[in-house]
């Protein structure tokens, strides 16, 4: 992995829900860099803070303390409008439950973001990247879970995001389908060079990452670089 300046830099990030004795420290001082082109896997059990971290990095939530810098700009100081612009231009999201728009076809779901992005690819090309060009005119209800997740990935990357954030992308899928989805993520990371963060509690997925970050109780407890990455197609769990 070539050294390059981080796209996202997280410093001293703290997130506390509630107050007083009942307060929950979801994040307790996290420092993390996400360089361009890197595929990072965030591992950890439920409640370890990984989703909170991802949400703040994606501009969906604000921290109690600390900051996130995007290309040198302080994301955590952005206005509501600036955050919307940030998500629109720079970030692609993939969720555990796909979150496709039921009344739009696969292609139209992708077009949803290409219509508002600055330099998007064609929706058809994005679908081709995830191997779904033949299912472009199907509605979500007509697609399998794996196919729906790949449409979600196509939708996330069609804007050519600098950052791709995936929250448990295989959580709702069986192993075989999950692998197909991970192959799609691997391919777009390689071909588009988006800094990619994949959240999972599935240890088996860690092998495909450039770097694996382990979290527990709102802290980073482990960081390791995979000397040798395993292709997604070779994973199984």
């Amino acid at each position, binding site marked *: 992995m070539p050294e390059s300046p981080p796209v996202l830099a997280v410093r001293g990030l703290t997130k506390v829900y509630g107050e007083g004795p009942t307060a929950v420290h979801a994040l307790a001082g996290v420092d993390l860099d996400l360089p361009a082109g890197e595929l990072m896997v965030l591992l950890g059990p439920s409640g370890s803070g990984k*989703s909170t971290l991802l*949400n703040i990095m*994606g501009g*969906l*939530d604000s921290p109690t303390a600390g900051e996130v810098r995007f290309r040198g700009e302080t994301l955590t100081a952005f206005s*509501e*409008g600036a955050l*919307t*612009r940030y*998500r*629109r*231009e720079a*970030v692609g*999201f993939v*969720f555990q*439950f796909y*979150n*496709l*728009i*039921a*009344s*739009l076809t696969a292609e*139209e779901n992708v*077009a*949803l*973001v290409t*219509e*508002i*992005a600055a330099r998007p690819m064609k929706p058809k090309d994005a679908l081709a990247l995830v191997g779904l060009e033949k299912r472009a005119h199907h*509605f979500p*209800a007509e697609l399998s879970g794996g196919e729906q997740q790949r449409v979600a990935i196509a*939708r996330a990357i069609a*804007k050519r995001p600098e950052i791709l954030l995936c*929250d448990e992308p295989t959580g*709702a899928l069986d192993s075989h389908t999950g692998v197909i989805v991970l192959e799609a993520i691997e391919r777009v990371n390689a071909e588009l060079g988006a800094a990619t963060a994949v959240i999972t509690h599935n240890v088996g997925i860690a092998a495909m990452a450039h770097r694996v970050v382990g979290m527990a109780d709102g802290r980073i407890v482990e960081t390791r670089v995979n000397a040798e990455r395993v292709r997604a197609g070779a994973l199984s769990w």
Partner: protein
Amino acid sequence: MRLVSALDAKLLRDLRRLAGPAAAVALVIASGVALLVMSLSALSSLQSTADAYYDRARFAEVFAPVTRAPERLAARIAEIPGVRTVETRVAGMATAEIEGFGDPVTALMLSVPETRPARLNALTLRSGRRPAPGRTDEAVLLEPFAEAHGLVPGDALTVLMNGTRRTLRVVGTALSVEHVYAIAPGGLMPDPERFGVIWMGRDAMAAAWDMEGAFNSVALGLVAGTEPRAVIERLDALLAPWGGTGAIPRADQISHWFLTSELAQLRTMATVLPTIFLAVAAFLANTVLARLIETERREIALMKAFGYSNLAVGWHYAKLALAMAGIGVLAGWLLGSGLGRWNTELYGAHFRFPFLEFRPGATPYAISAAASLGAALFGALIAVRRAVALPPAEAMRPPAPDRIRADLPEAALAALDSPTRIVLRSVLRTPLRAALSTLGIALAVAVLVLALQWRSSIDRIAVSHFEESQRQDVILGFAELRPSEARFALGRLPGVMAVEPLRIVPADLIGPRATHRGAVTGMPQGAELQVLAGADGRARAVPEGGVVLAETLAEKLGLVPGDPIRIEALEGARPVIETEVVGLVDGYIGMTATMDLSALNRALGQGPRFEYASLLLDPAEEAAFLKATTRTPMISMVLVKRAAKEKFDETLAETILIFVGFFVAFAAALAMGVVYNAARIALSERGRELATLRVLGFTRGEIAYILLGETALLTLAALPLGWGSGWVLVQLMATAFETELYRIPFAVPPSAYGWAAVTTLAAAAASGLLVRRRLDRLDLVTVLKTRE
């Protein structure tokens, strides 16, 4: 032990969570309930007040005028089977002069017994005392008349009584059961400034009208259960030799007749409109609850999976529906009772009762609760039934999209952006739901059209009556028949530009279907100051022979043009006129029968005579003219049209239009409730999609467009539908409101459609803003972490 079962705890939390939609359902129901309770409670209170007052004041059941009958006739009248009480009296019309008030004032003067209490039609003294025996200058005034001129006991009043000017001393004010609705002869509305009632001792009245040992008016009380018609027949026979002009039953007594007509109209308004309204509200509550429960599909499946029976699940949601509707019913009851009391008082100021009984009665409360709760329950249970019919596993998945893929044409798809496509497809995919929402909003629009056209219907009546039909400035009435030449004397009064004679002869009009006790109007050929005007506003020529009937009268009598008609005049020698119906006129007011004046005089065996005159005045000389009339003997009544028109408008503004104002307010609440719920439920169904779009970088405005765009689309689609339904409603109402008093013209001005649309759009926008605020607070993270 838990105080509340888990399911009931869920119920309470659901209610709190659904506070917005619950409030909207309650708002819709409360509007329907309040309107019904308000209208019916005002009606029943007025009715029971009238009944109680009639009873306490011993309101007579038969009234008869006579030219001059000897007092001894009273004993023979008392012998008529069925007669319980006889009260003879002296009555006369007079004009009064009141300092500082330029317009002529007409007064009905009546005698009261001097040494004993009245047997019938007892006065309710409001201040002062009755005239003392032997005092010939003491008078009691009808309270509203005294109030209108600030007259109190001790004040003086000049009256032209039977041609003699007298100064009277006011000793008291009173209300009378005969004058609850104190209306001048020929007037449409009470006008206490220009018409009043004055009571004096019998001897003083007898002296003024030359009635010593005689009477010219008699009132009868009947034995309970007596049919007045038989009594009237015998009474008419007894009075005929003494110039009886026909007795009337209480039903035709002018105050009572107006009161009954007004109450009948209020009853129509109080039943038809609120029923429509309640039905709309019930329908909306039904659809709203059905949709709300559709969104609970997963919870229902989950409860079934846990082993709850369909019945238990059904009961749980029934309670939710009943709670929401129940809040509305309670709020409606409270609001309706308050407004009902207020409305009763409003009408109470219009009809002068000495007391008001607010007696709402249980019926409106029961009906409104049953209709609202029933409809809400029905809507809820249909939706629950649909949900429990599915196997739990299937119900936990989101509903499958419709098999039939109605889609937009390719060309349209290409031209639209994604948000618009989402909006349009959502409408296409759930056509039934979209249709129901549209229908709900359309009904609110329809009710608004109905409420808003009222004013113009009434204006149309006023124009027809006061401009198209009566073109004179003043109508004069005379104490007795005047020869035709008297016109020229009238023409010499200051400011008079034209004079036309007029006769109004009391008569029984007899057709195959019914007999109508009314009057025949005689108009001269080529009359221009008072004409026969139809609904189209055009004047009809008065035919030289035969009679022209109002359509409503012809309908009542069962006559069509060409039919013979028998008219029994109720004055003089009581001649019978056998003539022919030569035409019908479709005016809005009254049950008129019109003949040529000369033909009428000939048929009555009289020369050219008249007892009313229409006058056209030079406005600059109006004051001088009015002053002159008060000094002219023989003039017993002066009706200034300008004043009558003002009074008409003023009275309507105080009664019907306030009533209508409530309809507008409640209809707006209805529209707001529907739109809010449509948008709010769409938000709960689409919250996830909208949050996803926000995450994908859509702005708040853009997702608001998707959510509210659909609502706006449905609202726009509802407008033409609502206009159409409103048009139908107006037609139904016009038919329902037809009384003998007047017909309601069918007139929907474009402005009614316009304002209905504006009001609905404003209500929709307000609802949209409320939902938009929720949308802005959409919790992106939570929405995304939960599974569909």
